[in-house]
């Protein structure tokens, strides 16, 4: 009888909770949480909306090691209010980035799983996201690499989608999505003719890891597996994307070229074809290693 499939299930990163992800990515036993659930620093804004709070306000932050090197890390819980950034949640992220300026770890890891600003505390969330953005840029300017991992159920959207691209590098699974306006929001505001959010093939072609990696928005494409993300974080440890005129100028040239070459594309598959991929329609089904072989040489990117 054919054994046929993955009998031993992988440890899915997407399915894991924020807490399990951060423990799985860092060295076993190394993680020291800051302002953990027992401190009960919860959102003061949810009770009035009759929304339950979470003891960690949906984000786990702290220090640990990765292959023995000291890192700071944060992990957002996408299942709690869509990983939305509120006042406390955002301040934990901002505080972690501030710590990076002082502690100078080998890297700050951001395990992002978020729809962006938490609308239940919208204004505070928006300000917090901008503070996180400044924090990321300040850490990088100070020479501390900031790495984003995107593979959670909510993906990474809204202002946090911009934050991810303010980092030195992004590791992403195909299942993880990255963008600014998510499919539901676009369908809601522009109508189903613009984007049919129920067409999940379209959604993942547009926002998913393979497309983001191919056009140079993500740096590493990994399987949806905790160990794969740990390996990716380790591999990216040394990655720096300096904030200097030369680096930003080449990034600028990449983005300008992308707009010029693919600005008229109506679908990701057309972009992949334009990049020289032989059979773009077949890409979504390929496993990561097969995919990387199939698209060898097609990726655009400064790194």
């Amino acid at each position, binding site marked *: 009888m054919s054994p046929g499939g993955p009998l031993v299930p992988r440890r899915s990163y997407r399915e894991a*909770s*924020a*807490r399990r992800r951060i423990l799985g990515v860092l060295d076993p036993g190394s993680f020291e949480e800051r302002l*953990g*659930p*027992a401190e*009960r620093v919860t959102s003061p804004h949810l*009770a009035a909306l*009759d*929304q*339950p*709070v*979470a*003891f*960690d306000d*949906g984000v786990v932050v702290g220090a640990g090691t990765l292959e023995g090197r000291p890192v700071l890390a944060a992990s957002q*819980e996408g*299942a*709690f209010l869509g990983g939305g950034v509120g006042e406390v949640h955002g301040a934990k992220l901002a505080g972690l980035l501030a710590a990076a300026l002082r502690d100078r770890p080998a890297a700050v890891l951001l395990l992002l799983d978020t729809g962006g600003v938490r609308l239940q505390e919208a204004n505070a969330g928006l300000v917090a996201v901008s503070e996180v953005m400044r924090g990321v840029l300040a850490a990088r300017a100070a020479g501390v690499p900031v790495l984003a991992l995107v593979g959670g159920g909510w993906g990474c959207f809204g202002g946090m989608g911009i934050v991810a691209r303010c980092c030195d590098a992004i590791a992403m699974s195909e299942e993880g999505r990255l963008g600014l306006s998510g499919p539901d929001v676009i369908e809601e505001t522009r109508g189903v003719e613009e984007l049919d959010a129920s067409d999940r093939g379209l959604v993942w072609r547009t926002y998913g890891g393979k497309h983001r990696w191919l056009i140079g928005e993500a740096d590493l494409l990994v399987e949806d597996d905790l160990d794969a993300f740990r390996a990716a974080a380790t591999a990216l440890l040394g990655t720096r994307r300096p904030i200097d005129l030369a680096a930003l100028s080449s990034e600028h040239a990449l983005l300008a070229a992308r707009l010029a070459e693919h600005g008229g594309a109506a679908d990701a598959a057309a972009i992949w074809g334009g990049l020289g991929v032989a059979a773009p329609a077949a890409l979504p089904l390929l496993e990561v290693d097969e995919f990387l072989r199939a698209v060898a040489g097609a990726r655009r990117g400064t790194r």
Partner: protein
Amino acid sequence: MERIEIELPSGRPAASGGGPVVVGVVASGNLEVLVERGGAPDRCRFEVSTSVHGFGQVWRAVLEDFAARRAVAGLAFSVNDAGATPAVVTLRLEQAAEEFLGEAG
């Protein structure tokens, strides 16, 4: 939000347990349980905050059964609930106790 606070007699656990532990997530139909040391040595304490109103009796019954079944005296359980069913609540409480006390509990 509705709050339920209750202290119940329970057996003494074999292990003493470590630092605070949290299991579960606050998502629709789910809950998080935080376990810490706390309360009298022969009783356990529960603090529940739930978005579903009017099920105080069900909570009491679930917690009483749990405290009677599991030796969890000297522990404090804090719960943030987003509409979990009693089945899920029971499972999370078991998971939380096990994680706090280790297999021996």
